């Protein structure tokens, strides 16, 4: 059958100029002419933009008029436009798998701009190879997969909350998974937001309540993703549910338990500056509004006796016998919104964070200045509780630092597995300039007599109302100093000596402050590497998750059905996170709006004559999608189509070469390899 198709192949080749993107380097006419004589080629054209309506129409016309049965497009990466052209083929009555693309932009003109001649030659080879493969392409029928009209949102910060609310509002069943006891994320820890100086929780808390009340949203707190299987439309996710030891339904949040609990520990929500009990609620507005037992510190769990909370709880909500378990949830789409973690400033020991009590970070500052914080809103030095008169802010701590990793940054042994958070990052964290301006402003607002200095490299205030806010800060008396200090020294009275160059006056300033606030950058969240691996998501060089396309698919990933919202993609402020959450929710809703989804048919075809049932394929298949079964002709391998993802490991391993991969057959690849090397 294959032979027949090959001999009757009628191929149209379309070479794209892509404006000057290709034509500026590659001699498109020469490429077009070289393709003309290739076997099976019926027509060759070049277009200014093949993907444009005009370009597409000329292909559709040719398919109809010249009865083409194969199409080769030499243009950009198939990762960009394969879908576009497959759709075109389908509309024109051709099987979409009869398309082959030669990537003469990303792999040719854009990388060989300095050698047009060689680039043109290479383009010819790539086209020849595509034509050779096209000749052997076979129509494939696409299996249909089911779509489960539900979505899982991973991460309950402001991005996850927003995405869940959009989806819930559309009537789509949504699971909101959060590893902490409460949703809210970092935004819940902020005192105020820039540039409007809204109280952060005042605007977030109503949204959290809305989530709790929305009947389409189910909050899975204290939960983490364990395993993800399946594909777009049909994901099976194993979620590890950790015990709260308090019945969420019964707990009314009265707080009697915490009042009587005998164990006091450092409060991580307050950045370890205050204390909480072993049974606690992270913050008063927490959702779910239920207490939680910290088993690492609870006296009952560590010493086997106590149970005071159980005794005082009138509702009988305490359940010491809760255990961790996994739950499998099926959804059609996933939104990842796991946010960020703050840069660990101990990674730059010259600034003394962790060594000098009065050097704090921007997130510490939020808790210190917050009325609900450990000092009830009084800005007190952690060292001695005195209110600072002179406060310095240092920008870009952990950001915009591209120095090499062999400088010993992570040699703080106590950081352990989180050492990655202490490695400085090359990118700009985007929000710190405005956070610092806001915090400097807040100091002056509370203590008009204070002296406030901001050390910066560049002030970046690109955002609605940001520049105006910066201007206002200056007019209030904040001193912005261009010049980054190299180190902080502690004086005997716990004050901090900062030497810097003030570039604008040309002086070297040697100033002493009562408190220094380090504007810590935003780095990928703890555990993101593992999560990305579970979902097969790519990460960009900066460590955050990679978007589907930097311009056009910012809320999507390389994997169909998995979308991004918030800082997990890259540092961004609250409005941007919320906006992206909307985009992700819309994309997920589109997926859920379909009844079925077509799945690429790339699986194996097994030649039962050749198969000896050796089981190698079964042993190597990562998905259990091929199995050896006993037939009347002996043991033979059998493909399980729904489970197969089409990687081709079985085909390339089969000990008797009994397996052929659809759409990536040996003969197709061999023909391609031959043609790509043909000397003309």
């Amino acid at each position, binding site marked *: 059958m294959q032979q027949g198709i090959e001999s009757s192949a009628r191929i149209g080749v379309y070479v794209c100029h892509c404006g000057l993107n290709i034509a500026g380097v590659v001699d498109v006419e020469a490429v077009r002419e070289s393709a003309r004589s290739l076997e099976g080629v019926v027509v060759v054209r070049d277009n200014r933009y093949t993907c444009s309506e005009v370009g597409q129409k000329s292909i559709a016309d040719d398919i109809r008029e010249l009865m083409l049965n194969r199409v080769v497009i030499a243009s950009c990466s198939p990762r960009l436009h394969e879908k576009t052209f497959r759709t075109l083929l389908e509309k024109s009555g051709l099987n979409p798998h009869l398309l082959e693309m030669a990537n003469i932009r990303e792999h040719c003109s854009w990388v060989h701009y300095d050698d047009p001649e060689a680039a043109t030659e290479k383009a010819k080879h790539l086209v020849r190879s595509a034509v050779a493969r096209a000749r052997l392409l076979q129509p494939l029928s696409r299996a249909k997969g089911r779509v489960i009209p539900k979505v899982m949102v991973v991460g309950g910060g402001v991005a996850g909350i927003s995405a869940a609310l959009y989806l819930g509002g559309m009537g789509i069943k949504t699971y909101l998974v959060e590893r902490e006891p409460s949703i809210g994320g970092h935004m819940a820890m902020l005192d105020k937001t820039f540039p409007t100086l809204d109280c952060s929780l005042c605007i977030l808390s109503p949204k959290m309540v809305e989530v709790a009340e929305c009947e389409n949203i189910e909050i899975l707190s204290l939960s983490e993703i364990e395993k993800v299987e399946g594909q777009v439309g049909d994901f099976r996710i194993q979620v590890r549910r950790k015990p709260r030891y308090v019945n969420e339904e019964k707990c009314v949040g009265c707080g009697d338990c915490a009042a009587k609990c005998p164990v006091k520990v450092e409060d991580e929500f307050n950045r370890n500056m205050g204390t909480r009990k072993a049974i606690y609620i992270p913050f008063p507005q927490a959702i779910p509004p239920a207490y939680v037992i910290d088993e690492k510190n609870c006296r009952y769990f560590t010493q086997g006796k106590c149970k005071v909370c159980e005794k005082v709880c009138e509702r009988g909500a305490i359940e010491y016998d809760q255990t961790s378990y996994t739950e499998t949830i099926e959804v059609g789409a996933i939104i990842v919104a796991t946010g960020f973690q703050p840069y660990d400033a101990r990674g730059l020991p*010259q600034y003394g964070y962790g060594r000098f009590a009065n050097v704090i970070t921007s997130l510490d500052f939020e808790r210190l200045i917050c009325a609900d914080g450990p000092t009830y809103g009084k800005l007190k030095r952690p060292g001695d509780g005195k209110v600072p008169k002179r406060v310095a802010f240092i920008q*870009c701590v952990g950001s*915009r*630092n*591209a*120095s*090499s990793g062999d*400088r010993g940054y992570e040699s703080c042994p106590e950081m352990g597995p989180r050492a990655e958070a202490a490695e*400085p990052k090359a990118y700009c964290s985007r929000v710190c300039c405005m956070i610092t301006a806001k915090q400097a402003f807040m100091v002056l607002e509370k203590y008009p007599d204070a002296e406030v200095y901001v050390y910066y*490299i*560049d002030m970046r205030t690109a955002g609605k109302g940001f520049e105006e806010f910066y201007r206002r800060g200056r007019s209030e008396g904040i001193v912005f100093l*261009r*010049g*980054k*200090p*190299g*180190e902080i020294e502690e004086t005997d009275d716990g004050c901090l000596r900062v*030497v*810097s*160059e003030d*570039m604008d006056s040309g002086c*070297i300033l040697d100033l002493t402050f009562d408190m220094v606030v380090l504007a810590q950058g935003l780095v990928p969240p703890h555990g993101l590497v593992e999560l990305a691996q579970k979902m097969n998501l790519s990460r960009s060089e900066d460590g955050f998750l990679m978007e589907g396309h930097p311009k056009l698919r910012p809320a999507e990933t390389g994997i169909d059905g998995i979308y991004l919202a918030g800082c997990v993609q890259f540092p961004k402020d609250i409005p941007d996170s919320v906006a992206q959450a909307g985009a992700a929710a819309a994309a997920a809703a589109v997926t859920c709006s379909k009844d079925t989804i077509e799945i690429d048919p790339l699986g194996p075809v097994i030649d039962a004559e050749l198969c000896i049932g050796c089981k190698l394929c079964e042993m190597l298949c990562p998905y259990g999608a091929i199995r050896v079964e006993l037939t009347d002709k002996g043991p033979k391998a059998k493909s399980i189509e729904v489970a197969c993802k089409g990687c081709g490991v079985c085909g390339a391993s089969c000990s008797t070469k009994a397996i052929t991969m659809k759409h990536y057959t040996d003969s197709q690849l061999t023909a391609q390899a031959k043609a790509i090397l043909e000397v003309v």
Partner: protein
Amino acid sequence: MESVQSKDASVVTILDPKFKYEVAREPGGENIKYCFQCGTCTSGCKVAELDRKYNPRKIIRMVILGMRERVLASDFIWLCATCYTCHERCPQDVRIPEVMNALKNIAVREGYIHPAFRAQAELIAGNGRLYEVDELANERRTDWGLREIPQGSPEVAEIFGMTGLADLLSGGAGGTS
């Protein structure tokens, strides 16, 4: 193109845009173009604290702008104490002490060499070491039970000839300061 200063020393009218590439090609100068003028280097520099003439950030700025002559003929490039404090802290990995070395290397080829460095180089070319090990010194070493050290090293002299430094030293490389 040379950088020329007008009568008013603070006004620069001509810049050599290629100078930064020249420095970047020199061993140690590779990363100079990454500098974003944050001033971390100068803020921790003990020399800059004591001597206003030396400001590493400013020197790099002048190189990037292209004030070739002004930089190479200066005495300030010789003031780096190579303590590497800035090198450790530079967020853009500019490798400032190495950049200073690159500038000094270029300056030497252009005929500017600080007399102290010239003297050192000549001593090494002649003795193989910074200090001549005369008989007296060796006697003293023997007294202490330490091994004698041979005087002079023809191989070192050969190295100076091989690399062309001997020529540079003899061929009128004048002093700066």
